[in-house]
């Protein structure tokens, strides 16, 4: 193991087919290509028009998540609930996967779900792999020590046709998280605080490696929450060195190696960490010990404060425009802001531990009058696991809706939206203007804060309810 290499550099070096030069980017090999209905149709069309096959269907895995309804789908008629064009898109992915020989985890498979939830769940996401998808939150898979990043549809076509991408090597950014995460403060709060610190463009051109004792102490689902939002800090990828926590999570999952192959894989994975003498292009130190639950107050994830902190004043025209849109006042905290909608789900916080976190707070309580609460599991497997533990009963007994798996109100493509002017406390990753519906005002928070806000009817500190 080269003591001077970073984790990123090791994974990168292992996948270079043709090295980069001043004139040309590297040809980088891709080990796993995840595909969904929204960013793939035009790529399949390019292949079809050029008479090309998908070169490695065995390294390609498709699912349906973005535009699928979260009410049960039994017939094609149900699909039309989400609109005719969405139904056409879903059918087109089914047809494309059939024609090009790609495995589709679709309706009825029991394994359908948000692309970044199912990769790890199936054990397809593994340390040291290069993983891409036509979706910016592909950074999630970096939690396993994979190099994983989002690509556009043209690049989806490149990977389908060649299993490779043309890439310039990005720079590296170490984010060292020291101290201890206080009780009632979650991985979501941590990553929001990190984005607040580095800014929404702080990671542009970089791959982040999250390091330090706080990161090492996180479980895999928490690590995924952190890596998921790397893109919200401008970085295409975020990585965490694999360790025993990683191997225990993966052991026995459907798509991991078995027997002696498993032992060999773990031995290989253990070398995937930055050497003691590794240098990063930049580094940032964060002390987690003073963190509180975090909430956004503006229209990007970098506009974030502690739940009791006052909304900052000043700022430029874009900043004031954001406060206007959000209808929040500088100097006042977000706690106490009346809430209309609560969304618990997404690839950031739609896993079983996230739903448990919310259910612990909802348990035995009632959602405040007039608040609509959607709990949307990240995958069919998460849904089944939650139901096996009775979490669906807790959720519905509290007056929240328990839905089918999908992206849902994270991006409002499937008909699950907040109405104009409504305030939504959401466990997703983007509070952009209109992201959850035209004129909808989004406050990003952890599942615990979202659940506490559902009970209180206003943005509320979960630490008072646990």
């Amino acid at each position, binding site marked *: 193991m080269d003591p001077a290499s970073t984790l990123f550099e090791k994974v990168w070096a292992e996948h270079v087919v043709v090295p980069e030069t001043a004139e040309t980017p590297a040809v980088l090999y891709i080990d796993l290509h995840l595909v969904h209905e929204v960013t793939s149709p035009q790529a399949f069309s390019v292949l079809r028009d050029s008479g090309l096959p998908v070169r490695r269907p065995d390294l390609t895995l498709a699912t349906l998540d973005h535009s699928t309804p979260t009410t049960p789908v039994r017939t094609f008629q149900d699909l039309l609930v989400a609109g005719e064009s969405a139904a056409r898109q879903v059918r087109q992915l089914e047809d494309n996967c059939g024609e090009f020989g790609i495995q589709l985890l679709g309706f009825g498979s029991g394994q359908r779900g948000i692309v970044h939830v199912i990769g790890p769940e199936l054990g397809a996401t593994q340390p040291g792999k290069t993983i891409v998808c036509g979706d910016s939150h592909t950074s999630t898979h970096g939690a396993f020590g994979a190099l994983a990043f989002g690509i556009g549809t043209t690049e989806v076509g490149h990977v389908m046709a060649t299993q490779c991408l043309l890439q*310039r090597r990005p720079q590296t950014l170490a984010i060292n998280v020291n101290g201890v995460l206080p009780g009632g403060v979650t991985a979501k709060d941590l990553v929001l605080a990190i984005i607040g610190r580095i800014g929404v463009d702080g990671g542009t051109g970089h791959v982040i490696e999250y390091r330090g004792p706080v990161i090492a102490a996180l479980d895999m689902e928490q690590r995924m929450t952190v890596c998921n939002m790397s893109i919200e800090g401008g970085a295409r990828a975020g990585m965490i060195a694999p360790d025993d926590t990683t191997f225990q999570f993966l052991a026995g999952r459907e798509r991991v190696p078995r027997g002696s192959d498993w032992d060999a894989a773990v031995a290989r994975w253990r070398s995937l960490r930055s050497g003691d003498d590794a240098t990063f292009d930049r580094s940032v130190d964060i002390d987690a010990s003073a963190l509180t639950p975090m909430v956004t107050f503006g229209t990007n994830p970098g506009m974030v404060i502690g739940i009791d902190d006052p909304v900052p004043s000043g700022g430029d025209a874009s900043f004031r425009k954001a406060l206007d849109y959000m209808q929040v006042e500088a100097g006042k905290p977000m706690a106490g802001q009346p809430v209309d909608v609560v969304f618990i789900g997404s690839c950031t916080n739609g896993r079983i531990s996230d739903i448990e976190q919310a259910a612990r707070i909802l348990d035995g309580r009632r959602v405040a009058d007039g608040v609509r609460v959607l709990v949307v599991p990240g995958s069919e497997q998460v849904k089944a696991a939650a139901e096996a533990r009775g979490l669906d009963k807790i959720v519905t007994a509290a007056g929240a809706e328990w839905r089918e798996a999908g992206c849902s109100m994270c991006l409002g493509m499937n008909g699950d939206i907040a109405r104009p002017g409504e305030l939504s406390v959401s466990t997703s990753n983007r509070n952009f203007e209109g992201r959850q519906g035209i004129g909808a005002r989004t406050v990003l928070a952890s599942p615990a804060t979202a659940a506490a806000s559902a009970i209180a009817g206003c943005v509320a500190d979960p630490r008072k309810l646990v």
Partner: protein
Amino acid sequence: MNPIRRIASRTVVLAVRDVDTDQIIPARYLTTTTREGLGQALFHDLRYDDNGNEVDAFPLNQARAAECKVLVAGKNFGCGSSREHAPWALLDYGFEAVISTEIADIFRSNALKNGLVPVIVDDATHAWLLDNPGADVVIDLESASLTLPDGSVVGFPIDAFARYCLLEGIDELGYLRKHLGRIEKFEESRVWKP
């Protein structure tokens, strides 16, 4: 893709920073399965009010914006999702270049692959452009430079390979496929297989 050498146009100015891809094209327009016609949805929720009427104050709705091929935008343009629909919508509307001090990674990569030229300028040039909407500028790809109305010329950084592909109208997939032999060798020589 058609070769691109020179873009001469007046500018439209969108003086807001962190314009994300959800604003460039809202998610509800992503159910399309082709690339055509997305210009209608470009900046939809900023361009139109709740009744579908044009918002007069929005820069694209002003008379002098018509026929402009160059968009000047605030810092960190194109952040957010990887949807290639964002550059497709800008191109379909008629834009050929975007100028800012900073353009988000995935958007920039998507833009280059479709012939939308990302032009990164220094703060002073940017401030001048923001203050002077409708300025006549020339973007020359061969020299990677931007010429302002007073004749001053500023260079901009652009990846050598991307520039070559734009200048020659080369499709990157064709280039990548020339390496298929090496890709196969790489696959055979790997110690572990995915």
